[in-house]
């Protein structure tokens, strides 16, 4: 057989594989969306689940938990990423830490959930709460986020650091003013993609943020009130946990419909995150590379 032919066959094979993957995803997502699409409307998004067919509080809880998780995990991940890629690039400690992080990133999330339950909910007596959930999700998120941030920083050539230092600028200032701004597009992608994972996480939350969504009062800004939407110590069932609960222990006649609608909302939000990641990274790239 001649080489051109082999080349062409291989290329078509690869295209076929890609097409299969894309088709499977489209089929899967399309099926879920088609089933739940009719449920999703403005009322579905804005009614509390206690009052009927709504997921208002679950949707808010998911977003609130996500924001708290990012506030907790971003600084830690950024610090670790700087330490691992710049300061400790060749140190023994860094290589051990990198291995540990890799191992941690494949830890089943139910284990993180149970760990959070034992430590935060029971031992520290925080109870089923937004806070417990956010801390558990931080454990869940840190390895991935640290890895993606390390990767983003590592794509900035180390010669930039040399350049800054040779100009009499301290290493820290060069990192802050040259290296990090250049790494931001990569870091934004990393943050938003991990946000998608966090947003859809259920197992780590079932025993930490809890499985109940008390009706929230969005006009109550006193974070110490139990019905305040900002109260971090109230239980907070998220979209993903809601889906899980509806499918395992719900007795209502509408459980399946609500579950299907919730799935649509969850999927679309995560797709929106991915889209946002691209836009933000692109925007920033444009801003500094011009």
């Amino acid at each position, binding site marked *: 057989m001649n080489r051109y032919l082999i080349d062409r066959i291989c290329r078509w094979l690869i295209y076929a594989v890609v097409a299969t993957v894309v088709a499977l995803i489209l089929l899967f997502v399309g099926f879920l969306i088609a089933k739940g699409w009719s449920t999703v409307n403005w009322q579905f998004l804005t009614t509390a689940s206690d009052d009927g067919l709504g997921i208002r509080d679950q949707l808010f809880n998911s977003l609130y938990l996500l924001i708290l998780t990012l506030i907790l995990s971003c600084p830690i991940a950024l610090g670790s990423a700087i330490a691992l890629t710049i300061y400790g690039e060749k140190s023994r400690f860094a290589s051990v830490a990198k291995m540990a992080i890799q191992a941690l990133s494949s830890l089943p999330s139910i284990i993180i959930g149970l760990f959070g339950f034992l430590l935060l909910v029971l031992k520290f007596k925080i109870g089923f709460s937004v806070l417990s959930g956010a801390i558990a999700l931080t454990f869940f998120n840190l390895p991935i986020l640290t890895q993606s941030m390390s990767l983003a920083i590592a794509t900035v*050539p180390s010669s930039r650091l040399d350049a800054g230092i040779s*100009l009499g600028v301290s290493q820290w200032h060069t990192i802050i003013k040259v290296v990090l701004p250049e790494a931001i597009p990569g870091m934004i992608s990393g943050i938003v993609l991990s946000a998608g994972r966090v947003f859809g996480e259920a197992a780590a939350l079932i025993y930490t943020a809890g499985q109940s969504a008390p009706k929230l009062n969005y006009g109550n800004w006193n974070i110490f009130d139990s019905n305040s939407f900002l109260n971090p110590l109230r239980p907070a069932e998220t979209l993903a946990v809601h889906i899980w609960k509806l499918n395992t222990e719900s007795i209502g006649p509408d459980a399946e419909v609500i579950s299907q609608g919730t799935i649509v909302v969850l999927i679309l939000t995560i797709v929106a995150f991915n889209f946002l990641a691209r836009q933000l990274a692109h925007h920033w790239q444009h801003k500094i*590379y011009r």
Partner: protein
Amino acid sequence: MAPVATYLQTPTEPIAIQTEDLTVTYDQQALWPTNLQFPQHAITALIGPSGSGKSTFLRCLNRMNDGLAKVEGKIMLGEVDVNRPEINVYRLRQQIGMLFQQPNPFARSIRFNLSFGVMEHQHISRAALQEKMQTALEMVDLWSEIEGDLSRNALQLSGGQQQRLCLARTLMLTPDVLLLDEPASALDPIATAKIEANLLKLKQNYTIIIVTHNLEQAARISDYTAFFYEGKLREFDRTKQMFIKPHLQLTNDYLSGNFG
């Protein structure tokens, strides 16, 4: 250790920077005690095979080896030994600028590249900064090539232009000494010629030390040449003298490509 033959000429010009028994040790010793005097406002070329210690030596002069290697001995910049822990290395690196083998501009605007270092060292008015940037770019013949547009991204420039921008970036700090680590080895002959022209012009005001593998380049632009071999300085002389009639057989072999 058997003594090795060396020939070190003493320059007649005033000395800008000199080393006294400078040694460098990584895991192993990389540079044996080196005494070298760099004449002011002249170009000195450091030549020698790869691994001969010339780049290692160069990077000691602005303390770029801090934390990477043990550097002992004196580095006298004028009357001051700058190889002491209490020396302010940030201030020192402002006085001794450096250019690297690969052009390494920041992936930002030309303006950011030029102003970044200066702003760290001094407060300077916007107008003064603008003027300084123009002067620096004119010195490296880049001002007209970029048509005065400082907002362009440095990575859009050609390799040679990037390297000259890096040179201008160093000049912004008004250093006394320029260290160049094979600055033209990644560039084509035309870009190389432009850099060399810049250096010949700059040597009126700056003391220039250049590491190069390009012997023609050393012959073309340098006033003095130092030959390193296996971590030791072996011969130091006026370039004309060394390239016509080196004192050591070893130098002669290296210059005529008679190695191995």
